[in-house]
């Protein structure tokens, strides 16, 4: 059985969910196969390591450069978009963003919304918000459509239904839509298309995300492969784009390497099938396009990350998903285990500023710090370094002022004392050597159970003699004085 997470309910227990996921052979197989394929695709998309590294370095500089003048760029963006006829709205919280979106829909007396893929709208839980107000918000990205149909959340930021295989999708379509069962992926896609095609025509409002918001020209850039993004942003009379404030870039020239990094890192594509450049509503002499275009710019904790020189690097993210594709933890537990909108390594470093570290206290620990994520990140976010930082924030004294929202959630006086003891042992040579002497001398008394370690391992038994001991004897025999 695959995991099902009710759309709004989250439990804080990462380990519990991980255990369930690990026991689900089908789920693990689905992820392993999918992630292996994505890793191969990415590797093939960057055949020249020098070019890849140069491009990553450039991507990092472009994003860091844009962030270094974020307030100015946002102002310029607003001005240019307004000149182009796009209405700009600012939202500090997801509630404000939802309220804004709802207001726009209501003004048009809309009741049907069709949505292209947007992680920010997931962040807002827009579907639920609108549903509670009698507005149907239908996902038009195939993966999003599948998870919405099954009342799930996306398990991957690029491929929302990657946790399901064709057989599972077939069964879902059969149960929910009454379609005949088939494991032919093309047929499954056709089923989805037929349903969605009608919705594009009927929708009052189309919602989309944004990959890059270009300040110089006032352009919203959206990459996608299914054409649903173009449909959602052009067919309905109103288009509402929602995005985070970190998506702004200075100009179109900067976008070229960033898009190349994005599509190659995500799916190994030189470019996506569709690249939408949205620069305004329908003009008087034009035949199609929306009558109104809105952009909702969401903060939701991003300015908190921005204010922290180290954590600011999380805002470099261009949402390619390569970090999760390469993560040995994500590959084994899948996206739902994280219990948050953004799973995987990137989710672990951006969620604390959105939701508070105390909401996801296990996330920083759910990593062996293997470094695969940092190695593949197209904009060189030092993810392991930031995870390590969050571990520090996690164990800070909660009585003290916190640098990261919700810090100190994992503070334990006892654990702190254990590490103090460890420190004492490792800074006092005589004590350390006495410890070695005792541990090796009384090795037979080593405990047979050593907490969680012996769940997966035999009990560790110290050697008969320590290296300190052996080295001293060896060097003495050699006539060299052990220093």
């Amino acid at each position, binding site marked *: 059985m695959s995991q099902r997470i009710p759309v709004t309910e989250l439990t804080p227990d990462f380990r519990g969910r991980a255990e369930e996921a*690990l026991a689900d052979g089908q789920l693990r197989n689905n992820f392993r196969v999918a992630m292996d394929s994505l890793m191969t695709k990415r590797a093939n998309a960057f055949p020249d390591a020098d070019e890849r590294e140069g491009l990553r370095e450039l991507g990092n500089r472009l994003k860091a450069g844009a962030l270094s003048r974020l307030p100015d760029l946002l102002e310029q963006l607003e001005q240019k978009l307004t000149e182009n006829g796009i209405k700009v709205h600012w939202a500090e919280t997801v509630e404000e963003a939802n309220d804004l979106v709802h207001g726009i829909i209501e003004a048009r007396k809309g009741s049907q919304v069709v949505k292209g893929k947007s992680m920010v709208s997931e962040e807002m839980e827009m579907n639920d918000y609108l549903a509670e107000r009698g507005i149907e918000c239908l996902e038009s990205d195939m993966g999003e459509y599948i998870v919405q149909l099954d009342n799930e959340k996306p398990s991957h930021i690029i491929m929302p239904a990657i946790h399901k295989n064709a057989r599972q999708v077939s069964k879902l379509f059969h149960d929910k839509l009454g379609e005949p069962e088939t494991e032919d992926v093309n047929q499954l896609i056709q089923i989805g298309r037929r349903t969605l095609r009608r919705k594009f025509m009927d929708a009052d409002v189309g919602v989309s995300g944004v990959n890059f918001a270009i300040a110089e020209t006032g352009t919203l850039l959206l990459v996608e492969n299914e054409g649903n993004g173009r449909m959602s942003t052009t067919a309905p009379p109103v288009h509402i784009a929602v995005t985070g404030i970190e998506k702004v870039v200075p100009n179109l020239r900067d976008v*070229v390497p960033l898009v190349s990094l994005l599509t190659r890192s995500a799916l190994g594509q030189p470019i996506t099938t569709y690249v939408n450049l949205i620069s305004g509503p329908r003009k008087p002499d034009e035949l199609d396009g929306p009558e109104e275009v809105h952009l909702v710019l969401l903060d939701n904790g991003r300015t908190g990350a921005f204010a922290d020189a180290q954590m600011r690097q999380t805002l470099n993210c261009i949402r390619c998903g390569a970090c999760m594709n390469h993560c040995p933890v994500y590959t084994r537990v899948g996206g739902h285990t994280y219990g948050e909108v953004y799973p995987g390594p990137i989710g672990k470093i951006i969620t604390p500023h959105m939701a508070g570290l105390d909401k996801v206290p296990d996330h920083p620990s759910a990593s*062996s710090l293997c470094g695969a994520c940092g190695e593949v990140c197209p904009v060189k976010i030092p993810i392991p370094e930031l995870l390590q930082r969050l571990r520090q924030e996690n164990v800070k004294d909660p009585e003290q002022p916190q640098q990261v929202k919700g810090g100190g959630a994992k503070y334990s006086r006892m654990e702190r004392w254990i590490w103090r003891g460890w*420190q004492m042992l490792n800074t006092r040579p005589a004590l350390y050597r006495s410890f070695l002497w005792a541990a090796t001398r009384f090795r037979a008394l080593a405990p047979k159970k050593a907490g969680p370690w012996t769940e*997966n391992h*035999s009990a560790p038994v110290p050697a*008969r003699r320590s290296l300190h001991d*052996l080295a001293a004897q060896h060097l003495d025999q050699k006539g060299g004085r052990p220093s």
Partner: protein
Amino acid sequence: MSDLFYDAAPNATRVAPEREPERYYPEKPEAVTLFGTCVVDLFFPEAGLDAIRLLEREGVRVHFPQEQSCCGQPAWTSGYRDEAKAVARAQLEILDRSGLPVVVPSGSCAGMFRHHYRALFADEPDTLKRVEALAERTFELTEFLLKVCKVQLSDRGAPSKIALHTSCSARREMNTHLHARELLQQLEGVERVDHDHESECCGFGGTFSVRMPEVSGAMVKDKTRSLMDSGAVEMVTADGGCLMNINGSLEKQKERFRGRHLASFLWERINGASEGEVA
């Protein structure tokens, strides 16, 4: 790639790609300090001793300061910065006393010296200078043997197939996998076989293995399975932490397959069998 994408290449945008230069390796020194590491010290001391023997065979005098303990990594990766820093400072004092090059038979601990001490002491400019100097003269064992000693190994062992496991931090911070591969290539009778998902983490990650035993356990099970399926008769690694994790898991699973430290493996191959200095 089509012409369209030439613009995406860094040259077109005139930003010179910043590439880490290949490390500069000094002439072989007369003497080095061996930093044993806490895991080798207590659980694989023979590997540490074999490292000393390998170095001495190259004519390098080995110092083993008895005051050394742990590099500080366990606390650092667990979020206990102050504690890690205190331990790091103690090692820095000891290693600075002779100022000799430091050889470490574990890639992740070498990586700690070379990369993470900088972060620990970023707020102390004077200490940072010493830390930079330590980083410059720290070498992982296989790297030191290969690049500094320019070791030539002649194999005296029977033909064997082995798998090589490299710790992630060592792979990414020290390039240990490349150095170890080159060393193994010198051994005529040894065939190194690839194993499935070779570059994937074994699941150790220090305290990760006890904080997230479910996930860590799944990772090490997959790793041991791929090692055993590789056709190798044993695994070698230059990292104590991974070795403890992988062997502990194999023993728990009651498998006969085992891993051992690369230093011990090399010493045995070039001598035919292990010298019996240890009780």
